[in-house]
């Protein structure tokens, strides 16, 4: 078993630096998700770990071993590709057994482990088939089985679910989680899907523009995004943002109302007297109030969308739009004027210029 350490890894393509001195420590057996929009460098970082890209600076360690200059085959990793990369000229059995055969294991063991892997992913009935005779979901399972039978200490997955349809993706997601609990290999999982990240990761490393901007357990990423980008990237719908200004007494005026920051932040706000500030809050942390009270803002309901498990409201606050999620039985209609209550403990305040969260 092995932890993974990226030490100021840098990768340059032509004139663009796509990985900017990234350092990241992943524990042994951890399920780490690299999350970010396309082009943020997450796949490149994974490929640097796999040895499919050579790094232009820094070191990559697996366990205590410096693998920076090793070929992929010498890194003791297994990888699942976005395209599955199942070999079309080999049967399912030969696909799964491919890596084992390369290790020159005795044929009995190859057979045993291949069948074991096939069983784990419910492929036993398809062992003699060729990939062309399989559905997309089955091919995906072959790719996973092929990686798992390697029993490598490190398992890499590059957007493995992105080519599946929505329902299948939901199933496979749960299955991957079960598999990880079973085999306990250190897993790095690249995705742009924040739900996948929240559901699968022990921790999530959010990447933006070649850097890791936050690395934490999922609920912390969700509740305490490190900056505006992360708050806006994670959650459906994402976090709401409102402009405000810090008053002399440490409260913040948003539109015509005043909001009091949580008591733990009072010191930080004292220093920002008069400065603009950004209020971030998730749609489900806003509640409707019947009358003006502390920490409420007047809002106008524009759209009501009943979504079954909840109602999604689009509201106008001053000149800005926000989304509010309320219980499905909440009685509310569009064009209504209401009071919105902000829970100070749930507000994430951010610097208006840099977008960085204030702690």
């Amino acid at each position, binding site marked *: 078993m092995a932890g993974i350490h990226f030490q100021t890894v840098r990768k340059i393509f032509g004139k663009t630096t796509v990985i900017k001195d990234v350092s990241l420590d992943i524990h042994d057996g951890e399920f780490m998700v690299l999350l970010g929009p396309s082009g943020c460098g997450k796949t490149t970082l994974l490929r640097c770990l*796999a*040895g*499919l890209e050579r790094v232009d600076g820094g070191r990559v360690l697996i366990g205590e071993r410096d693998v920076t200059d090793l*070929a*992929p*085959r010498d890194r003791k*990793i*297994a*990888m699942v*590709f*976005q*395209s599955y*990369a199942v*070999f*079309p*000229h080999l049967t399912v059995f030969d696909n799964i057994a*491919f*890596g084992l055969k*390369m*290790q020159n294991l005795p044929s009995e063991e190859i057979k045993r482990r291949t069948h074991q892997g096939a069983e784990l992913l419910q492929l036993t009935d398809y062992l003699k088939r060729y990939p062309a005779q399989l559905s997309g979901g089955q091919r995906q399972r072959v790719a996973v089985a*092929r990686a798992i039978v*390697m029993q490598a200490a490190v398992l*890499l997955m590059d957007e493995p679910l992105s080519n599946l349809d929505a329902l299948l993706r939901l199933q496979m997601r749960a299955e991957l989680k079960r598999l990880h609990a079973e085999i306990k290999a250190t897993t790095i999982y690249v995705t742009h899907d924040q739900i996948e990240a929240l559901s699968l990761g022990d921790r999530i490393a959010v990447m933006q523009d070649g850097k890791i901007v936050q690395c934490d357990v999922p609920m912390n990423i969700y509740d305490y995004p490190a900056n505006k980008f992360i708050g806006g990237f994670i959650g459906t719908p994402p976090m709401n943002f409102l402009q405000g200004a810090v008053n002399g007494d440490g409260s913040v005026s948003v539109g015509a109302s005043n909001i009091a920051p949580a008591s733990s932040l009072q010191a930080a706000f004292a220093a920002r007297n008069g400065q603009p500030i950004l209020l971030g809050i998730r749609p489900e942390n806003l509640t409707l109030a019947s009358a003006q009270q502390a920490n409420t803002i007047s809002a106008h309901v524009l759209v009501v969308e009943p979504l079954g498990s909840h109602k999604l409201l689009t509201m106008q606050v001053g000149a800005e739009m926000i989304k509010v999620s309320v219980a499905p039985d909440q009685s509310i209609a569009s064009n209504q004027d209401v009071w919105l209550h902000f829970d100070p403990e749930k507000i994430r305040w951010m610097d208006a210029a840099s977008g960085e969260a204030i702690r």
Partner: protein
Amino acid sequence: MRIMQSSYSPRYILGRIALYGAAILLALWTLAPLYLVALAAFSTRQATFQWPKPLLPTDFSTDTMQFFMNTRGVLDSVGNSVIVALVTIAGSLLLGAPGGYALARFRFRGKEAISLGLLISKMFPTAILAIPLAVVFLQIDLYDTIWGVALVHIAMALPFVIIVTAGIFVGVPRDLEEAAQTLGCNRVQAFVRVVMPLALPGLVAAAIFTFVISWNEVFAATILTLRNRTLPAQVLTALNDSPLYYRYAGGFFMIVPALIFIFLIRKYLLNLWGNISR
């Protein structure tokens, strides 16, 4: 045509008749000369001067073909042609396939220039290669050898082979090769175990394509040889002083392998001839 037209309207039927009529007419235009030269090659020698000639194989005979095959130099030239073609295949694939792979897989400085150079080099007229090489080959004892001819044929085929094989390797997803590498292969093993099996049909087609180039090449083969002729060189130099039946048999004999090979690589026709022309 395909959409929203009721299947059996008179207009549709007329359209179909016109379509198949045109297709068949064009097929007859293509096949007629082949049929007739075969007919001539499988008649008796005397039948060449018969007037008017029958259009059906009423007097089928291998007499003409036997005469052709027994003519001095013909069998040797067939052997030479086969050897030259095989050497051309081996040489151009061994040299060109790695280059095609490099163009398909890597980004590197100078790639554009090399691609452009290849495009240009396949435009050069045979004459501008064959004539100076004939002069040089005289000096280095390659003149009048099948090896000299093979060298020129390789040079002629190489740009095509690189472009064709690059297309074949582009068709093998890079992911597969990388997957093999993560599963314990080094680059060479990944190539042999994954890329080769997937590229093989295309490479075979490229080999056959190369065979056709070499088998059919007349100008350089004639310029570069004197006694060690290839078949087209043999037939060409005998054109003026050989009887008609000799020419028919020679023409037919050159066509047969072509027919076979077109059939073998029928699935790749567009990829080979269609795309090498870009």
